[in-house]
């Protein structure tokens, strides 16, 4: 563990995060956020999602830039393969969430990171989405994450980082726990 004299900089502003915790303790309603994404069909299985506005801290926020994530299916499914599949985007979201979490926890614990890479794999039996067997689920049967981390810390400290990042990850929670999803038509 680093001491106070060494400066650890993983590019995470933990003081701001801790300050937010204090503010939300006094004003829990400010902690209610709503994120959104707008998905437009392009052609075939190709679609394009635009992400910009969100609600939080009691008000709407508009970003300077609209982010676009496109999705498609690969050639083996007779598609154009112009972009990753939606489940792959979910895997990338899990990787980003856990990796960001590792950086934040490392900063808080005074651990300097040099390299963090996560390789995420998900197993899907596509007979599920093809409706061939009701016993087979559509989604991932199993997801694996393998981290490679170079940091100024012991192996135990790194294991603790990775465990804590799962404990506090939104996407890890989304994948491991059920969520009510309400779909309707405008």
């Amino acid at each position, binding site marked *: 563990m680093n001491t106070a004299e060494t400066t650890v900089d993983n590019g995470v502003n933990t003081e701001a995060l801790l300050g937010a915790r204090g503010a939300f303790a006094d004003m*829990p309603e400010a902690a209610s956020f709503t994120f959104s994404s707008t998905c437009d069909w392009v052609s075939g299985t190709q679609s394009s999602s635009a992400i910009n506005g969100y609600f939080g801290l009691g008000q709407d926020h508009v970003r300077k830039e609209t982010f676009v994530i496109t999705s498609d299916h690969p050639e083996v499914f007779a598609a154009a393969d112009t972009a990753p599949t939606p489940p792959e985007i979910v895997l990338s979201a899990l990787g980003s969430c856990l990796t960001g979490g590792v950086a934040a926890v490392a900063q808080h614990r005074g651990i300097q990171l040099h390299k963090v890479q996560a390789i995420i794999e998900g197993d899907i039996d596509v007979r599920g989405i093809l409706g061939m067997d009701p016993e087979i689920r559509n989604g991932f*049967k*199993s997801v694996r994450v393998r981290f490679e981390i170079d940091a100024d810390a012991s192996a*135990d400290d790194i*294991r*603790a980082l990775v*465990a*804590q990042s*799962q*404990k506090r990850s939104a996407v*890890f*929670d989304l*994948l*491991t*726990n*059920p969520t009510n999803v309400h779909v309707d038509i405008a």
Partner: protein
Amino acid sequence: MKQISTIIIGAGQAGLAMSKCLTDRSVAHVVIERGQIANSWSTERWDSLRLLTPNWQSRLPGYSYSGNDPDGFMNMAEITGYLRAYAAQSAAPVEEGVTVTSVTVQSFGYRVETTKGDWLCDNVVLATGACAQANVPPLAGQLPSGISSLTPMSYKSSAQINPGGVLVVGASASGTQIASELITAGHEVTLAVGTHIRVPRLYRGHDIQWWMDQSGVLDTRADQMDDIDRARRVPALQLVGDRSIDALDLNHLRRQGVQLVGRLVGIRDGYAQFSGSLANYCALSDQKMNRLLEGFDLWAERQSLIGLEPPERFDPTHVDLDPALRLRLHDSHIRTVIWATGYRPDFRWLHLPVFDTKGALRHAFGVVAPGLYVLGLPFQQRRKSGLIDGVGADAETLSNHLILNRANRAA
């Protein structure tokens, strides 16, 4: 209306310790008890339960274990007898069979209404305990009909369980003990595991509580903690008062045949749904245990303790690669669910604005409001506050505060 300086509500270890401290300071008081002394221990625990702490670790102000088995663990009859003997020895003014129905502010003090008349007093000490009711999650309401629902407060023994499968929710001391008891009785048992604190019963030849006590871990003060709210939420150690078992941990239960699954997160379409994060809950618990043991090893080294067995690290918790994510509740698969999901205090009769937005009692190290005190909550003043062995120190502090506060109010 009767008047008295101080009313203590509850005659368990906390109320009796406070009574002794007030007697020592010549503060007139009465201890009001809805049942008999040590009521919760004698009526709200399961038959096979023994204290999680060894006999020597039941020290109370002016009282300690004097039997010939300091390393043993009291059963419920023994702890009840122990506390009744304490009440007798300290001549605690206990009024049994009196239930408090309301506490409100009146003039410069408090009005305490009971089933046997009302009192006016300057001080009230809430000593009804941290485990006054079972903490059952809201999703329990979604259980299909035909499945029995029990808590560690209504569970007594395997004799009361219908033949068939049992789902035990929660893997701290209560859940693991009941799961072990029920699989031994021939039930198929599934244990839903969330946050839990794994520790061995014995470490390097000493009871884990010896280490906790001697190393000073139990004396850690609440004001030394970065995040006291989180520390107060830490579940009880996964222990059993039985030295014949090295550790009643998940590996032990798995060897017994208990099916381990993740935290119960939903009940839908006749299925219980479990979190897919079991491996991480177990990893966090193993890491926490190893850090605790590492701390003990360092402490022992600094103290140059001799005669200790060598340091030891225990097998990681074994988790199936793909634990079950759901379990059929219909068709007799599961006949009983036991909610070993913790306990919480019960202050529904406390009609004062002293609760936070989540309904928890607000207090500063046990001081709730001028003249209003609480005892026996987890990590109230020190890590040991919730233990029989820790409530005495808190009672001493609070009774000193009470005397000082009384002097200030009189001035």
